[in-house]
């Protein structure tokens, strides 16, 4: 299976989008080689703005560019986009519903060796709580490119969460992404695994492992965390009776919480959240980190078995 990091797919998609749409501009905060906006900067230097190591002004200027009719893609690491610049995103982009696309890379603990200071496990929770904001976590390179083109067509602020490490390519060109729509990747009757980002590949593996034990697990790629696809969740809850969520994020406030909110109000079934268990990460290789922090297919399998017992 081929592998590509979603940030790499983002960099390539931006260049394609920039060719198509002259209004697309890109801003970065001295991380263009890491966020991969460097490709766009080379292709369209006049439409690329390096704002220096100043994330607050990066987001404020993006809002101003949007007010001036441009479609700004503002990139930096998730920690500094959603963290440091939260309030500018809230007040200058979301409150006036300006057309700002915040594309944040290096999200989650698979940033790896940089350690906890750079491992954002809160960004989805923060961005999800802002009115007018749309939050998307693509699962692979193919989906990332489709997301970038879709959000350019949609008018309004969007937060896209991208990763540093290469992830397996799950989809081919026939894959269809729609904002606000979950996609059932695998049918199943006993339990549903709802995943996003790097955990979608793990969920697919987990589903195979469960099959060997006679458990039929449905897998849903919930790339849009907000607005969340209630319909697909309610259907899954009713048909499989148990749900596991899987995300590379704190179990508080992210996909797991968003799913729990829907289930509590619409279709109560047992739920188990797989994610970072309300703790900071540490330095290490991504492979070691996902093992230590419980973000593997194995952890999803265990959660699935537990939640089935509660049915």
């Amino acid at each position, binding site marked *: 299976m081929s592998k590509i990091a979603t940030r790499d797919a983002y960099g390539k998609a931006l260049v394609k989008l920039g060719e198509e749409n002259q209004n697309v501009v890109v801003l970065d905060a001295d991380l263009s080689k890491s966020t991969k906006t460097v490709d766009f900067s080379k292709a369209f230097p006049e439409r690329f703005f390096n704002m220096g190591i100043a994330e607050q002004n990066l987001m404020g200027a993006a809002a101003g560019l949007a007010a001036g009719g441009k479609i700004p893609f503002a990139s930096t690491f998730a920690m500094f986009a959603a963290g440091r610049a939260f309030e500018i995103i809230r007040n200058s982009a979301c409150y*006036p519903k300006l057309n700002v696309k915040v594309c944040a890379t290096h999200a989650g603990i698979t940033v790896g060796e940089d350690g906890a200071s750079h491992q954002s496990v809160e960004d989805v929770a923060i961005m999800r709580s802002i009115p007018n904001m749309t939050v998307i976590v693509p699962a692979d390179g193919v989906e990332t490119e489709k997301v970038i083109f879709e959000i350019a067509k949609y008018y309004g602020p969007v937060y896209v969460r991208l990763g540093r490490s290469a992830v397996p390519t799950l989809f081919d060109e026939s894959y269809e992404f729609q904002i606000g729509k979950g996609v059932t990747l695998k049918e199943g009757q006993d339990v549903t695994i709802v995943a996003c980002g790097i955990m979608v590949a793990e969920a697919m593996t987990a589903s195979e492992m469960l099959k060997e034990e006679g458990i039929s697990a449905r897998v849903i790629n919930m790339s849009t965390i907000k607005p969340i696809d209630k319909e697909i969740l309610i259907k899954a809850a009713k048909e499989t009776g148990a749900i596991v969520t899987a995300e590379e994020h704190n179990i508080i406030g992210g996909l797991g919480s968003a799913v729990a909110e829907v289930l509590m109000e619409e279709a109560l079934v047992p739920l188990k959240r797989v994610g970072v268990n309300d703790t900071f990460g540490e330095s290490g290789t991504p492979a070691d980190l996902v093992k230590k922090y419980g973000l593997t297919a194995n952890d999803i399998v265990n959660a699935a078995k537990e939640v089935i017992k509660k049915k």
Partner: protein
Amino acid sequence: MRDHNELKKVARNVRRNILKMIHESKSGHPGGSLSSVEILTALYFDEMNVDAQSPKKEDRDRFVLSKGHAAPVLYGVLAEKGYFPKEELMKLRKIDSMLQGHPDMKGTPGVEMSTGSLGQGLSAACGMAMASKLDNAPWRVYALLGDGEIQEGIIWEACMSAAHYKLDNLVAFLDYNGLQIDGKNEDVMNIGPVADKFKAFGWNVIEIDGHDYDQIFAALDSARESVGKPTMIIAKTVKGKGVSFMEDVAGWHGTAPSDEDLKKALDELGGEDNE
């Protein structure tokens, strides 16, 4: 319009309306609204290419009230220009009103940027100036900053970027009245030497009396001559200007006048209600 008598009449109306709307809503910021009346009237009645009948016309100049708490002066000036009926002013800060406590670009005709959280307006103004330059468009961007506001770090990020990207289509005023909520700037957090700081950040800096129309217009004319540098007009002003008992008193930063205060203030300002 550079007829000073006419401008002074507009300014007096705006001051009267600032006081009346804040009195009516029983909340708002009179001090820093009154200190920037001459700056805003000069911008909207002479300098800027704007049309109240066509608030979204493409090549309009943009104004960003970075010190968003001075919303009453902006609303007063927009109403004088005819962006919306003056009766709206008396709904300031009330439920279902288009006039929010701090400017809301979605709800109010003529408001170009939602502001209120200090420092963010200048960043947005930079982005707008960048957009205008990208399109080789003629429209210019104006911003008004508070002096206390420049204590925010984002202001200096924005200043650095405006100079870096040579935004000579950007003109910011600093409403330098010397006071913020807790007292004098120099006691709360010294901001000086202000002119040196902006010069060091690569701006074209002009220092004026912010209540003198001749000086305001001279500064704006000179800003148009600036090549490759954004302009900061440091306007020395008096907080609460025009109302004797409010002048230079920090306590009037965010306090509404009582019935008695209002009557006294309106008597001092002179003029009639429906001018």
